[in-house]
C-alpha cells in the first residue's frame, strides 16, 4: 500500500510539468502582446516596455519556459495582472469552496444514485424501473446550468425557500449541489441498475434467497457489495465532469470557488491566472483518481494482495 501510494504521488509532479508545458505552448501561440495585457490597457508605451523587461518577455522562448518552470518549483505561478503578482494565494483561498461543492455533490450522488439504481434493478421492467430509467435519460440530456436556473426560478423566486446565489450557510449549497450532481446521479443510477440486473441472476443470490434471506437483505448485504466497485469507477471517470461542471455552476451561483476565479481570469485575459487555475484543476483530477484507486483496495479485497 505504501509503495503504491509513493509511486502514484511521484507521478503527480511529472503530469503537472507536462500539463504546464502544453498550456505554455497554447498561451504563447495566442495572438496579442502579453506585455500590453499584463501592464493594462491604460498604460503608456514606456510602462509596457518596462513590463516586458520585468516579465522577461524580451528573452527567447526557451529561456522563458525554463524561467516559468523554475518559478513553479518555487511556488511562483507568474505575473497575474489581476493580482499584480503571484496568483497562488488567491487560488488557494478559493479551493475550499470548490472542495465543499464537489464533496457535497459526490455525497448526494451516492445517497440518491445508488438507492435509485437498486430499486430500478430489483424491479426490472416494472413501473419503478421505467420511472427511474426515464429520469436517467432526462438528466443526461439536461445542461447543469439550465437545471440550476430552473431550480432558482422555482425554489428561490417562486417559493422563496432557498437563496439563489452566494455561499452563506448550508441553504445556499442546496441548489448548486443538485445542479452539479444531476448528471452523476443519473450515471450512477444507470450503472447500479445494470449491475443489479446482472448480479440477480448469479448463483450467490439464488443461494441467499434459498436459505430464506429477504430480498432487501440480499440486496443490501450481498448485491450492493459487488455493485460498489463499478460505481466507484464511474465516479472516478466523471471526476473531470465534476471539476469542469463546477466552473459553470460556480459562475451561475456566484459561488466563490476556483472555477469562478478562472472565469474572472478569462474575462480580463489574465493568462497566468487561467493557467494557474487549470493546473489546480488537474491536480484535483489526479487526487480524485488517486482516492478512487485507494478506495478500490478497501472495497475489493482481491486487489489488496495484488
Amino acid at each position, binding site marked *: 500500500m505504501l509503495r503504491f501510494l509513493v509511486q502514484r504521488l511521484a507521478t503527480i509532479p511529472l*503530469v503537472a510539468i*507536462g*500539463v504546464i508545458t*502544453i*498550456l505554455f505552448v*497554447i*498561451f504563447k*501561440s*495566442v495572438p496579442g502582446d502579453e506585455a500590453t495585457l499584463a501592464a493594462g490597457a491604460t498604460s503608456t508605451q514606456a510602462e509596457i516596455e518596462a513590463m516586458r523587461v520585468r516579465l522577461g518577455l524580451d528573452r527567447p522562448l526557451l529561456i522563458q519556459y525554463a524561467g516559468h518552470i523554475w518559478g513553479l518549483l518555487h511556488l511562483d505561478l507568474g505575473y497575474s495582472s489581476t493580482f499584480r503578482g503571484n496568483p497562488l494565494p488567491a487560488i488557494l483561498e478559493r479551493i475550499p469552496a470548490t472542495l465543499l461543492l464537489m464533496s457535497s455533490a459526490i455525497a448526494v450522488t451516492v445517497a440518491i444514485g445508488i438507492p435509485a439504481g437498486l430499486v430500478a434493478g430489483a424491479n426490472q421492467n416494472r413501473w419503478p424501473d421505467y420511472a427511474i430509467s426515464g429520469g436517467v*435519460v*432526462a438528466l*443526461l*440530456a*439536461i*445542461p*447543469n*446550468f*439550465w437545471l440550476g*436556473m*430552473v431550480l*432558482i*426560478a422555482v425554489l428561490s*423566486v*417562486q417559493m422563496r425557500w432557498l437563496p*439563489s446565489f452566494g455561499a452563506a450557510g448550508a441553504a445556499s449549497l442546496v441548489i448548486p449541489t443538485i445542479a452539479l450532481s444531476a448528471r452523476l446521479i443519473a450515471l450512477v443510477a*444507470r450503472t447500479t441498475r*445494470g449491475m443489479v440486473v446482472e448480479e440477480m441472476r448469479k448463483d450467490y443470490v439464488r443461494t441467499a434467497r434459498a436459505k430464506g434471506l429477504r430480498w432487501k437483505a440480499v440486496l443490501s448485504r450481498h448485491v450492493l457489495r459487488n455493485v460498489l466497485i463499478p460505481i466507484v469507477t464511474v465516479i472516478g471517470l466523471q*471526476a*473531470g*465532469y465534476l*471539476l*469542469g*461542471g463546477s*466552473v*459553470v455552476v460556480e*459562475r*451561475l451561483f456566484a459561488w466563490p470557488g476556483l472555477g469562478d476565479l*478562472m*472565469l474572472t*481570469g*478569462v*474575462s480580463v*485575459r489574465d*493568462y497566468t491566472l*487561467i*493557467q494557474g*487555475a*487549470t493546473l489546480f*484543476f*488537474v491536480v484535483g*483530477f*489526479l487526487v480524485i483518481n488517486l482516492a478512487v484507486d485507494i478506495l478500490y483496495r478497501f472495497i475489493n479485497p482481491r486487489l489488496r494482495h495484488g
Partner: protein
Amino acid sequence: MADIAAAPRRRRRRPNLHLLVGGSLLGLFVALAVLGPTLAPYDPMAQDLFATMEPPTAAHWLGADQVGRDILSRIMAGTRYTLSIALASVAAAALIGVALGSIAGHFGGRVDRAVTGFVDLLLTIPNLVLAIAIASAVGSSPTGLTVAIAASFVPSIARLVRSRVLELREEDFVNAAVTIGMSPWRVLARHVLPNAISVIVVETSLLAGQAVLVGSALGFLGLGVQPPAPEWGAMLGASREALEIAPHLVMAPGLAISLLVFAFNTFGDGLRDRFDPNMQQR
C-alpha cells in the same frame, strides 16, 4: 404447406426504437437548422419594444425577451449555430483522434508511447476546463468554439480507437495481411480501420450530445457565440439577470438544448444496439 416451406426465411430484425426516435428528432433539428430562419414567424433580431419580456401569447408563442425579440423565432434561427458547432467539432475531433489512435495502436513501440503519453496528459485536464482555456486563448468566435470543443474531445476518441486497433491487431485476418507482405499503412487502411468504424461512429454520436452541452455551456459563459446572435447557450446567459422577473425566458432555450442532446444520446444508443449489442454501456 409447400409454399410456406419454400418461402425464403428472412431473419427479422427487431425495430430499433432508439434509432427511430433519435434519428427522426435529429432529422427535425437538421431541417430546422436549414430552414429555421425562413420558417420563423419573426425576424430573430427584430426588436419590438411593446412586447418586452412578454409571457407566451397568441402573437409570441414562447414569449418575447428583454428587447422584445420573439423567442420562438430565435430558437428556430439558433438551431444552426448549436448543430453546426456540435457536428463540426465532433467531426474534427474524430478525424484527429482516429489518426492519432490508430497510428499509436497499429505501429506500437515508440510512436505508441509518445502518442499515449500525450493523450493521457491531455486527459488529466477536465474537458470543460480545457475547452475554456482554449476558447479564452483563441478568442470567442464560432471557429474558436469549434476548435476548443474539438481539442477537448480528441484524447478520448484517440484512446478508444487505440484500444480497438490493439484488439484487431491480434486477429487472424490482420496477421494474414501482414504475412503476405502488405505494407503496414495498407493493412491499417484496408483491414484494421474498416473494422473499427462501428466503434467510432457510436462514440462520435454520443460525443455530439456532449458537444452540444459543452458548446452551450461556453455560450452561457460568454465564451462562445456572442449575443445578439440567437445561440441557445448565449440566450440562457442573457436571461440570467431577468430570472426574477421573467422566468419564461429561461424555459425555451434550455428545453431546446436538452431535446437536441437527448436526440444525439438516443441515436447513439440505437447505433450501439445495432452495431454491437455486447458493447459496454457507458
